[in-house]
């Protein structure tokens, strides 16, 4: 598997792991190690006095590049401020930009997303936007200067896989920046399908963190992403309406 390049940085793994939903930090550490992921997302929330163990310490220990998100933001203004706070807290100008438009489906708000992306790019951020599977919106985000586009397969945490493979293929076909399938992965085959469709990487959290055995699922996801990427690179056979024998059709014995 070749390296993943985003905004001039190179990553050996094409699986990006979200740290949300794990029972505890120990589970985060085990899953991150098993996944082989080199990028891990974190959220920004209020400090409270009971906070003890350090998430950042665990991620550092596993050599992870920390990617803060703007989860929980419903307006461009809140998302931009959250990104700036993450930059201040973590010393990174990379952000997974998330602007939610509906609290039931957690689908992105397209208008607010583009506005926030434009403002953050102008402010020097490397912006990785979580977006819908709309190819036109993906293009708008790329035109705004985003370093990647991250379409959903289905709503966050829904585990429904890739609901619109056609749209995903269109996004991949036109994109001049990496395409990262973000959200909706339920099991390993979903991740493989995303990579076979030509995605450059897969970002997932719940599929691993809420699996019965997160570390084991992290291994499955690592293999699934690699398998999908290898299959895409190898070039699959075309689909045919009828069978095509693989054994020779000549030299067949006449036995009756």
């Amino acid at each position, binding site marked *: 598997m070749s390296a993943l390049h985003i905004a001039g940085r190179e990553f050996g793994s094409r699986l990006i792991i979200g740290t*949300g939903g794990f029972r505890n930090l120990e589970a985060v550490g085990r899953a991150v190690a098993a996944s082989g992921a080199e990028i891990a997302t974190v*959220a920004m929330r209020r400090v409270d006095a009971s906070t003890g163990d350090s998430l950042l310490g665990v991620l550092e220990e596993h050599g992870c590049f*920390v990617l803060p998100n703007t989860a929980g933001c419903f307006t461009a203004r809140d998302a931009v401020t959250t990104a700036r706070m993450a930059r201040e807290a973590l010393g990174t100008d990379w952000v997974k930009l998330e602007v939610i438009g509906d609290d039931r489906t957690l689908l992105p708000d397209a208008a607010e997303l583009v506005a926030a992306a434009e403002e953050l790019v102008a402010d020097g951020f490397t912006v990785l936007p979580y977006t819908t599977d709309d190819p036109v919106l993906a293009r708008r985000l790329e035109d705004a200067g985003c370093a990647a586009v991250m379409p959903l397969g289905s709503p966050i945490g829904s585990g429904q896989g890739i609901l619109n493979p056609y749209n995903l293929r269109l996004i991949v076909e036109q994109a001049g920046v990496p395409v990262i399938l973000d959200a909706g992965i339920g099991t390993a085959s979903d991740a493989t399908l995303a990579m076979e469709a030509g995605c450059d990487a897969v970002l997932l959290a719940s599929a691993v963190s809420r699996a019965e055995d997160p570390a084991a699922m992290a291994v499955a996801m690592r293999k699934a992403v690699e398998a999908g990427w290898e299959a895409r690179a190898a070039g699959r056979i075309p689909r045919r309406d009828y069978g095509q024998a693989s054994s020779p059709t000549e030299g067949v014995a006449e036995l009756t």
Partner: protein
Amino acid sequence: MPSVILNGSGRELPAGATVADAVRVAGAPEDGRGVAVALGGEVVPRGSWSDRELAEGEQIEVLHAVQGG
């Protein structure tokens, strides 16, 4: 004795209290590593925490990284 809104809760802080004091009261580590502050929706750079005094009614958010997708 400014009364401020610190991470969503009303708090009385001593006269002359600064952003750095609020960060400590919020429960962040002494060195403020991994922490960011916004006052009224604007980020306050770490370098100004100990100079910036808090005024009555100001709204302070003290955030850090937590588990999240």
